[in-house]
Structure formats: C-alpha cells, structure tokens
C-alpha cells in the first residue's frame, strides 16, 4: 500500500505569533516546527504499516520553503520512507485554495491509496485542507477520524459529528484527516533521527509539477487581506507560576470576585 502524508511546517506553537503589518502574512522567520497535529497522521500511517499492511510505503509531502528541510527530516524520522518537498518562491503566500492546488498536483503524479492529513494547522487553525485536496483529486474524503480500519480496499473511520459518532466507509484511494485523539505519537529513537537524512528526498518546483504559478502563491491567491485590526480582548488576566500557594491565591480571587461564597 502507498500512503502519502501531507505535513506543514508551522511557527513553534509555544512561541508568540505575529502577523506582519505590511504583507499581512504570518511572520515565519522564528523557530519553526512540524505541525503537532500532523504527527498523529504519521503515527496512524506507521500503525498501518506495523499492523495490517506491512508492505506499506510512507511518503511525506510538504509545500514549504527549502529551509523546512529539518521539519521534513523530523517527519521522516517518525516513520516516513521518503519525502516530496515542494519548494518554490512562487508558492509563498498561498492561501488554502493555492496550497490545495499545489498539494493535489504533487499527489496526482503518483498513485497513492491513502492520503492522510492532520486535523488542522496549529498556526491558522483552519481544518478544511482535506476537503479541498480530495475534491481536486476527485476522490472520497473523510475528516476528523478518531479511528481508522482497513479492509477490502476501503477505510472505515469513526468520527465525531454534532449528534454523536458516525462510522463512515470510504473506498480507496481516498483522503482522510485524523483527530488528535486517534493515537499517541511516539518520539522517534535517536537512530531514526540520524537515519532520516539518508532517506530519499525529492525537492520539486511548481514547474516540475506542471502548476501554473499564477494560480498559486500570493499572486494567485483567491483571498486577500486588506487590513488588520485588534479585537476587543477579554480584559486583565492574572497568571502566576505555582509555588505551592497558587490554589490558595486562586480561591482568594474567586471569593473576592464573589464567584465562590
């Protein structure tokens, strides 16, 4: 079986994020890391390989500047066999539609049985890439999978909806995005981290994928940000590090605010 996993490099979620006033884009020059939600997609693929389909090949696919190589290695270390890294300056500033066009073009070149994504990106907190990519590939799509089972050329997924849990069956090839509760991603052992660099890396440009650069990136963006403003905040927050007395201080605060009698 051939599994592709779309992974995104995002600014370190533990760092303060900022939007550039001029370009209206997220500042990505700080410390970057693999989107934590995508680690669940990689783990899901590794579990398929360790379980029902041992002959699985796992391909990591990302669209990111060349500097994202470290995040690609990180994804490979966690269980990828090879990577396709779409690096092209013309792709910078892509919105959801542009990114989906690029990813779909890369995925279309090969025949993957299963295409996995994370539930959302930690920077944008969008959660719809799977739906866009599946439509461009004209394949079935299931999002927010809490579990995945394989049988007879299809995947059976349990997923939460507003009214409860649905069990949905999709024929492969298909696109599945996974919930962050589907598994506990393992940290790769040191040899796997060392070995990642030696795995096959393919760096491709938009031209090599046959993507018309005017339909993606900032130039081809279908959405445009004309300005930024600050929303009304919630007001003051008291934050303190627990030194053993935090619970007492909290209770005093609640009593003072008359939240607790």
């Amino acid at each position, binding site marked *: 079986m051939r599994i592709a996993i779309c992974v995104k490099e995002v600014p370190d979620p533990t*760092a303060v994020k900022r*939007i550039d006033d001029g370009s*209206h884009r997220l500042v990505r020059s700080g410390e970057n890391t693999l989107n934590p939600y995508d680690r669940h997609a990689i783990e899901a693929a590794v579990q398929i390989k360790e379980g029902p389909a041992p002959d699985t090949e796992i391909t990591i696919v990302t669209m990111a500047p060349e500097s994202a190589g470290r995040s690609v290695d990180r994804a490979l270390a966690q269980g990828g066999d090879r990577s396709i890294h779409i690096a092209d300056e013309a792709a910078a500033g892509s919105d959801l*539609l542009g990114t989906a066009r690029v990813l779909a073009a890369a995925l279309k070149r090969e025949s993957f049985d299963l295409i996995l994504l994370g539930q959302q990106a930690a*920077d*944008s*907190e*969008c959660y*719809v890439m*799977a*739906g*866009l*990519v*599946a*439509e*461009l590939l*004209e*394949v*079935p*799509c299931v*999002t927010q999978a809490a579990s995945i089972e394989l049988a007879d050329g299809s995947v*059976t997924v349990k997923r*939460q*909806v*507003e*009214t*409860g*849990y*649905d*069990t*949905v*069956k*999709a*024929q492969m090839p298909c696109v599945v995005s996974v919930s962050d*509760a589907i598994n506990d991603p393992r940290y790769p052992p040191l040899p796997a981290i060392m070995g990642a660099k030696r795995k096959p890396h393919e760096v491709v440009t938009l031209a090599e994928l046959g993507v018309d650069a005017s339909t993606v990136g900032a130039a081809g*963006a*279908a*959405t*445009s*940000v*004309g*300005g*930024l*403003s*600050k*929303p009304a905040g*919630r007001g*003051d*927050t*008291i*934050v303190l590090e*627990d030194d*053993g007395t*935090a*619970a*007492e201080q*909290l209770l005093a605060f*609640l009593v003072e605010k008359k*939240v*607790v009698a």
Partner: protein
Amino acid sequence: MAGIAVLCEVQGGEVARGSIGVLEEAARLGAALGESVDAIVCGSGLDDAKLAALGGFGATTVRVADDALLASGIAQPVVDACATAQEAGGYRYWLAAASIMTADALAGLAARLGAGIVIDAVELHAEGGALVTRRSGLGDSVLAHCGFTSTVGVVVTRANAFAATDGNGGTAPVERFAPTFRAWSQAVTLVGHEDAVETGPDISAADVLVAGGRGLGDASGFGQIEELATAFGGAVAATRAVVDAGWYPYSAQVGQTGKTVTPKLYVACGISGAIQHKVGMQGSGTIVAINKDKNAPIFDYADFGIVGDLNAVVPQLTALVKARG
C-alpha cells in the same frame, strides 16, 4: 455573479440555529450589497412547509435538494448539490455556520469552483460593494479584513458568531432541485451511527464547570476533576481530545462540535485552549486555567491562570474549597 447562498443545515428535522443566525446576517449583508439571499437546504424527506419559514429569517427563495444520498450528513454529496445550485443560481457568495458537515462541504465547493474560502469569519461587512470578512486569528489576537479576488467567495463563519432571532414569521417559496452526483461522492457511505447519550448532569445548566483535557494523562485523571466539581457543587466538562479518546462521555464535551456553555465559573485543567474549544466556553463568567505550559493559548482568555502541574493544584484546590464548606 449575483446573490448570496446560505447553506443551511438540518439536524434532527430542524434547521440548525447556527444556520438561521448566518441567514439573518446574510440578509443584512445582502441589503447593504443589493444582493438577494437564498437558503440552500440538503437532506432527505424534508418538510417544505417547515423550510418555507426560512423566509422569516431573510431568505428570498429556499432551494431544496432532497435525496437519499443527502440523508447521511456526509459532505461530498452536499458539495454536488451546492455545485448544482451554483450552476443555476450563479451566486457571488456562499456562506455557512461552521459545523463538521458544512465546513467540509464548502471546502469542496471552493475547490470545485476555484473560489477563495475564509474560515472562522466572525463579522461580515459590505465594503466597496463587496463582502469583506473579519477573520479572527492567532488565538483571537488579530482580526484580518479578508475579502476575495475570485469571482465567487466562500465563507465558513465561526460557530456561535451570529445568534438567531425568532424571525418575522414570514415565508419564502420553496423550490426543489435535483443535484448531479459525482462518482467519488458516492464512494463514501455512512455505515453506522451512535447517538450521543446524555449522561450525568446537564452541563449547560451548571453554575460551575470543571473541565478536563488531555493534560489529565488518562481516563483516571477525571477522578480529581469530579472531586473538584463536587466540591464546587458543579459539573464536569471535557475537550474533544479526551472524548474522542474515550476518557469521558460525549455529553460533557464543550466546543464547536460539542455544547456551548456559560457557567459563572469555568475551570480548565490540562486544556490547551484551541479555538474550537474556546467557542463553546468563552461566554463563561470567570475563566480559570491550570496548565503546565505558560504559552498555552488558554491563558490568553483566562481571568486567572496558574502555570503548574494540575496533579498538584487540583487536589489542593479541592481541599481548600471543601474546607470552606
């Protein structure tokens, strides 16, 4: 392109309140832009008389796709229905209140139409003769004024962003149409469904909620959450991560897909504070967060935050609250 289409979701035979809120907001936007608003409803065995009532919330016409393929709540057949409606209607904008189905359906529609899509819009404005959204981002620290360069624009609004009124009692004509379904949309089927069962106290009615997330470590971690909730005379809430993992029942879930709650006090323990959780609890009176990561987004919207190990803080707090008796 002309007009605004609002994808309205039917759940349990009723049009979702969130859909009605967006329909009303679309009507205000349409008035400012000089565009009429159609409600698009997909389902199976739908009741036209009930749907005509969407006219009382601003719909000029209610366009209905009624087909067994639309009964399951699976998004891709809905993409087909919306695309068919778009061929006939030539809409300039598509809107929907965020839900599991609508977000996926409008994402698919955007891809098929080559339309831009804005997620998590919290305001819709008419500016320069066009729709410009306010897209909330980075833990609600910034509002991007986000519009479109594409001929069609697609918007998924944040859950709870637009509250529904009782409407003016008017009605609109209901027109049925037959979608053209694509092969791949039929290659995904619903094979089972478990209804969420209400267990324990109704969290929507509780004055105090103590909420647990993945920081509890495992299902047994909810023991101390329950003890604190009992000490406060409140109830227990949960994130999707722990519900999906089977640590706690779905009826306790707060957030975009779960419940919206407004207790006097919300104590979030081991919860990172993802937007999809926040939208369900940000209306709470006082918000307390206990998290060992000082950069966790939950601290951005807490009134009182404790950076620390919940396994130390929660039992201490329980003892102190009990001692006050």
